């Protein structure tokens, strides 16, 4: 208990007393005193004042006492750096002690003393311990390298500890291997490019051998490390999978999850028709289900991970619906997660059972759970068409219960059902209208108003109903106000005679009495539409709405891929990438599944253009969007645009804007280089170099391979893939349009949003013949750069709208900056020299290109094809330095220095620029720094 004598230390008097005891001659008394000190320390009390006295007790041969003193040192050395030096000698001595326990203890404690001054004294003892004969000491020393790296990374590199650590991977003791792997993985995280964990088939083999023999935690370290390896071919990944699968029957669920991660990742490499692929799928299900019988906390973690797995590979658990049924004594967090997975697994085959369960859940006690269950019923209706009828009747039953929050939730989902199956279940409207008065949540009110507006022609007293809402118009939330405005306009268009007064009332309320700009804008638009062209108004407001998608709440695919790579870690529980919750540069590497189509295509998700819910969607009143995934909000930059217009010259303002924003962000460029941009470097520039590798091939500008910009799913069957190229000084957008719909597509047109470099189509889209189903057409669209300018994020983002006879579709893509390098980008030598010198040193930015096996001349030739001109070349100490210049279409000059060392495949690039700019260079981010 807390009144234990060891815990009762509080006041200064006692500190004094302890001091006396610590300095006592009697060993027993000393020991007791140290224990008391540690007791206070572990409960979080401050006993740092006793530092010198405790350190004096360090010289002892009593192991127990030594352990306690070391524990004290770990906690307080940092607050007393000068005193800590006193301890160094003892550490050095203890590292030579005949007892391996003491050696290990010393080396463990040493690493925890986070005092810069004394780290260098510790290198020698650490070096010895890394080569100690006792594996226990070696494994402790391996972790100590990671600790030291955390304090002083440079020192660890200089002292060559990293190499020693790498050697430990081949150690005979599995535990040492595991700890070395853990330490290296952690160090590698802060050096994404360092290639520390050089995983090759040999090391993989060693790791797999150690996997069978080390402790459970060691197995986790090794499995996590394996997950970062990319096998060369499917055979290798199969053999790794075969050796990892036995881990699925481990009792430790963390081991199981790590093994699942490795398997999920390597499965991507396996061809689907392989027998082994099917076997593996079958093997994955039972362990995942078993995780659900563990402790509730673990169940939660398992469920969050299963949620990801089910989205990626629904076939694994499709027959296991029953295990996700909620149990009476599950904690609420387990219940909610189970419910989520149940909906994902719902299919025609099991829908009856699922619905029966959901109906039970809707009568539970926990409000959140009940709400989610009601919502789930609606989602089932949308997902499984055959069940829609039963779902609707279940929802109606629930509405009859008159439980307030159940009714509201049901109305919200019924609105979605109406959207999915228009004109099918209107008979229930009457029941819904009965509950009008009990709705007090904005979402439910808005949903109800939407329904009334949408089906105004079938509700006799629609005008009365809406009028009743109008009374308290100003007290409603914006959502409801917007809904009400639209619903009344719809009503007016449907029954113009009776409701003229009402529509005038709402328009004046929205435009004159409201200070919400959204509401006012929408009000004005309707007003003008109605007053100028009622027919057009009808076409706009009562237009047919796009159907809502079946699957809802799906995680965006690129994020899902990343999260799959993080199974079993915090990221998989939060369903967020590590960069979202880890501070600093650590751990922000983006992991990708091997061999997947999305790998390395685009940094930003392509779906930044609002699919629904904005602009057009707003007018069509679709802002009550179903729970679909929405991308980041579109750049709404009214302010910026205004500023730009005032300044007149698009470029000037762009520069000014960049100055102000980038100045803060990149104050210390080389140091602040984010890890995220160094990672993809190896990809893109290499492409640039590798291109035209064939002999005698004409040097042309680099053009990335075509990628899918607009998937058919999002555009009613129209798929657009494309790329950009610069041919003979003209920027071209090369697209393949594929019709995957059932009907013929005609009347194509294209338009760009404002963008950073003023790209605009130089002519109309040349699709002359109608595009019949399953037909593809190649289109080349010449571009010019005289269009309106607006800064985009990222800079090379281009938002495109394509229209055909069916609809207008939006997508965004990113063009390679190299496309904008103009042919007269060769700077005069003198000018180059002067400009280069003018650039302050601290504005330089540096990065490395990996594994490029070209000599400097070949590189220079190749780059020239992309209008990157070599101005001068210098050779210093076997290093070729190429000085290069390029000019962008808007007249900005970029200067670069490329260092090539013969035999070393890594290039160093130093970039400078006449302006602050953040460019995306074929997928490579380069920070280009100004010459002031």
């Amino acid at each position: 208990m807390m009144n234990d004598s060891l815990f009762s230390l509080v006041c200064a008097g006692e500190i004094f007393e302890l001091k006396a005891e610590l300095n006592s001659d009697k060993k027993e008394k000393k020991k007791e005193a140290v224990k008391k000190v540690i007791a206070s320390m572990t409960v979080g009390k401050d006993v740092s004042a006793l530092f010198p006295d405790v350190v004096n007790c360090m010289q002892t041969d009593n192991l127990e006492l030594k352990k306690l003193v070391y524990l004290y040192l770990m906690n307080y050395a940092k607050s007393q750096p000068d005193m800590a030096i006193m301890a160094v000698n003892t550490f050095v001595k203890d590292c030579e002690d005949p007892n391996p326990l003491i050696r290990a203890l010393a080396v463990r404690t040493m690493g925890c003393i986070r005092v810069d001054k004394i780290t260098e004294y510790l290198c020698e003892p650490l070096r010895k311990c890394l080569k100690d004969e006792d594996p226990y000491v070696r494994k402790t020393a391996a972790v100590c390298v990671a600790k030291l790296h955390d304090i002083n990374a440079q020192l660890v590199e200089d002292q060559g500890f990293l190499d020693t650590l790498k050697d430990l991977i081949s150690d005979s003791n599995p535990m040492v291997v595991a700890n070395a792997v853990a330490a290296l993985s952690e160090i590698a995280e802060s050096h994404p490019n360092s290639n520390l964990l050089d995983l090759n088939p040999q090391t993989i083999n060693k790791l797999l051998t150690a996997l069978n023999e080390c402790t459970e935690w060691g197995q986790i370290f090794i499995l996590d490390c394996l997950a970062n390896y990319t096998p060369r071919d499917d055979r290798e990944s199969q053999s790794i999978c075969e050796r990892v699968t036995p881990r699925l029957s481990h009792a430790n669920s963390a081991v199981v999850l790590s093994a699942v991660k490795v398997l999920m990742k390597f499965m991507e490499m396996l061809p689907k028709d392989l027998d082994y692929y099917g076997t593996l799928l079958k093997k994955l299900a039972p362990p995942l289900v078993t995780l659900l019988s563990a402790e509730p906390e673990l169940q939660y973690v398992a469920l969050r991970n299963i949620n990801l797995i089910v989205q990626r590979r629904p076939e694994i658990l499709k027959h296991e619906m029953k295990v996700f049924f909620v149990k009476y004594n599950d904690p609420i967090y387990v219940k909610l997660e189970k419910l989520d997975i149940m909906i994902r697994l719902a299919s025609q085959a099991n829908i009856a059972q699922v619905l029966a369960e959901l109906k039970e859940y809707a009568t539970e006690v926990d409000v959140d759970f009940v709400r989610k269950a009601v919502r789930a019923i609606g989602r089932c209706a949308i997902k499984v068409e055959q069940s829609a009828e039963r779902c609707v009747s279940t929802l109606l039953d629930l509405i009859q219960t008159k439980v307030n929050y159940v009714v509201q939730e049901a109305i919200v989902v019924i609105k979605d059902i109406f959207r999915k199956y228009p004109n099918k279940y209107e008979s229930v409207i009457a029941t819904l209208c009965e509950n009008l008065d009990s709705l007090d949540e904005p979402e439910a009110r808005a949903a109800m108003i939407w329904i009334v507006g949408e089906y105004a022609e079938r509700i006799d007293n629609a005008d009365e109903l809406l009028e009743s809402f109008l009374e308290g118009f100003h007290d409603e939330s914006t959502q409801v106000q917007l809904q009400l405005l639209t619903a009344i306009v719809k009503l007016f268009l449907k029954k113009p005679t009776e409701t003229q007064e009402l529509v005038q009332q709402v328009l004046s309320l929205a435009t004159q009495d409201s200070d919400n700009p959204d509401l006012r804008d929408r009000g004005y638009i309707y007003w003008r539409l109605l007053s100028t062209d009622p027919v057009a108004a009808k076409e706009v407001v009562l237009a047919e709405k796009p159907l809502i998608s079946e699957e809802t709440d799906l995680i965006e695919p690129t994020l899902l891929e990343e999260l799959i790579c993080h199974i079993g870690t915090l990221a998989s529980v939060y369903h967020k990438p590590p960069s979202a919750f880890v501070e600093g540069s650590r751990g922000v590497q983006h992991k990708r599944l091997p061999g997947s189509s999305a790998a390395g295509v685009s940094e930003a998700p392509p779906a930044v253009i609002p699919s629904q819910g904005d602009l057009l969607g707003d007018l069509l009143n679709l802002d009550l969007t179903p729970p679909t995934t929405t991308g980041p909000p579109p750049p709404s930059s009214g302010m910026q645009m205004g500023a730009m217009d005032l300044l007149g010259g698009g470029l000037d303002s762009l520069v000014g804007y960049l100055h102000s924003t980038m100045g803060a962000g990149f104050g210390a460029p080389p140091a602040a280089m984010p890890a995220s941009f160094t990672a993809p470097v190896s990809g893109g520039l290499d492409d640039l170099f590798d291109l035209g590798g064939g002999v005698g091939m004409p040097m042309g500008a680099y053009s990335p391979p075509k990628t899918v910009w607009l998937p058919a799913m999002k555009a009613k069957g129209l798929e657009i893939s494309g790329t950009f190229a610069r041919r003979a000084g003209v920027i071209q957008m090369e697209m393949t349009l594929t019709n995957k719909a059932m009907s013929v597509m005609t009347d194509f047109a294209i338009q760009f949003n404002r963008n950073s470099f003023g790209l605009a189509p130089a002519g109309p889209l040349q699709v002359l013949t109608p595009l019949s189903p399953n037909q593809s057409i190649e289109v080349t669209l010449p571009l010019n750069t005289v269009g309106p300018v607006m800064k985009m994020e990222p800079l090379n983002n281009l938002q495109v709208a394509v229209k055909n006879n069916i609809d207008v579709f939006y997508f965004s893509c990113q063009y390679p900056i190299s496309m904008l390098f103009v042919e007269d980008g060769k700077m005069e030598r003198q000018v180059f020299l002067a400009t280069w010198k003018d650039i302050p040193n601290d504005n330089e930015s540096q990065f490395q290109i990996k594994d490029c096996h070209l000599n400097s001349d070949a590189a220079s030739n190749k780059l020239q094809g992309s209008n990157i001109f070599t101005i001068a070349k210098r050779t210093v100490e076997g290093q070729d330095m190429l000085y290069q210049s390029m000019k962008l279409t808007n007249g900005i000059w970029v200067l670069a220095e490329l260092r090539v060392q013969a035999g070393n495949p890594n290039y160093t690039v130093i970039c400078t620029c006449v302006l602050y700019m953040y460019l995306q260079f074929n997928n490579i981010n380069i920070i280009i720094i100004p010459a002031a």
Partner: protein
Amino acid sequence: MIGGLFIYNHKGEVLISRVYRDDIGRNAVDAFRVNIIHARQQVRSPVTNIAHTSFFHAKRSNIWLAAATKQNVIMVFESLYKMCDVMAAYFGKISEDCWTPKENTVLTGNILDFGYPQNSETGALKTFITQQGVKSQITSQVTGQIGWRREGIKYRRNELFLDVLESVNLLMSPQGQVLSTNVSGRVVMKSYLSGMPECKFGMNDKIVIEKQGKGGRSEDGGKSSKQSIAIDDCTFHHCVRLSKFDSERSISFIPPDGEYELMRYRTTKDIILPFRVIPLVREVGRTKLEVKVVIKSNFKSSLLAQKIEVHIPTPLNTSGVQLICMKGKAKYKASENAIIWKIKRMAEMEESQISAEIKLLPTNDKKKWTRPPLSMNFEVRYLKVFESKLNYSDHDVIKWFVTSDEVESTRCAADAAGADEKKEGCPVTSSSSSSLLLFLLSAL
């Protein structure tokens, strides 16, 4: 990796705080207390992010354990549980007194180093704490391949005890239809063997067993009386060689000394319930409740169920209970809010019944009684040893823990039932010391 480890008592007072990494500030200890322990609402997630620090937390008998981190780490719940196990093994139970700093401060240093979980073998850690500076083989033991067993163990009598504990979960619809059943079993071993014994444990899953029941099988009709049972999945203690299990389906291991859980298994197919429990609940007005529970045994003649205990939950506002039971003893326990009905033994095809009249205090609480599920425990002694050459003596205890869950609120309980699996366990005395070959052919 883990940046800090905090242990609190139920009041939120810190028992242990260890910070392994610099990124966890000292205020993290308080942040957790304020946001989780002292938060008024229910725990909505065992993983929470407070001010950019993620906390994994679990509560074990009044003790809060929390691991804090700022990085993307692997799940560490297992290590928290292990820590509890170690404490329980060392002190006999987990309570506040366990966390006096004498031993555990050193202990936590051995479990986690720089936030990396290191060692969680109970036996080895015990040696760590107790040994006093003597140069021992502990270092080679904990880093070696067999970290869970020390060398040189000697017993005069070599003994091995095996318990099979099963719990049956049953989910029933309000209409009485069985939605899902599953059996999760644990094989718990107590080994007192000398040297480094190599043990083998056979499992005859997918075996086809001849049904013994002859009478009362008419409903099976023309169906064959053979039946196969498959295990859905099993997990093993760290000591079992998993790769060998994967390739040969044989469980081979060098056991730790003392008690441990060798394996867990799970099965869902073809479960015949040994008992049927039929509850009837009738609400008579607002202050009275009538409950009637019937249990019927439904297993074959050679078996006998013993120490049957039925746990019938009652509403919170119960003021008094009147009980009439045909067999056994029943008692209302106010502290557990339940009626405990104990029957010493029950043979095949027997039926027994209890009826209770529960008086309720009138409340104005609108929340209706959620009707928690009924649960039932019993033991079955059953043994079949196929290996007669080794002198096995035949005592065995099989404990069946049966819990039933239900999704439904109109009934008081669902069927509580055991499974059709027959488990046999046996304590084994063997004369061979170091290579004891144990064949346990259980009809899993």
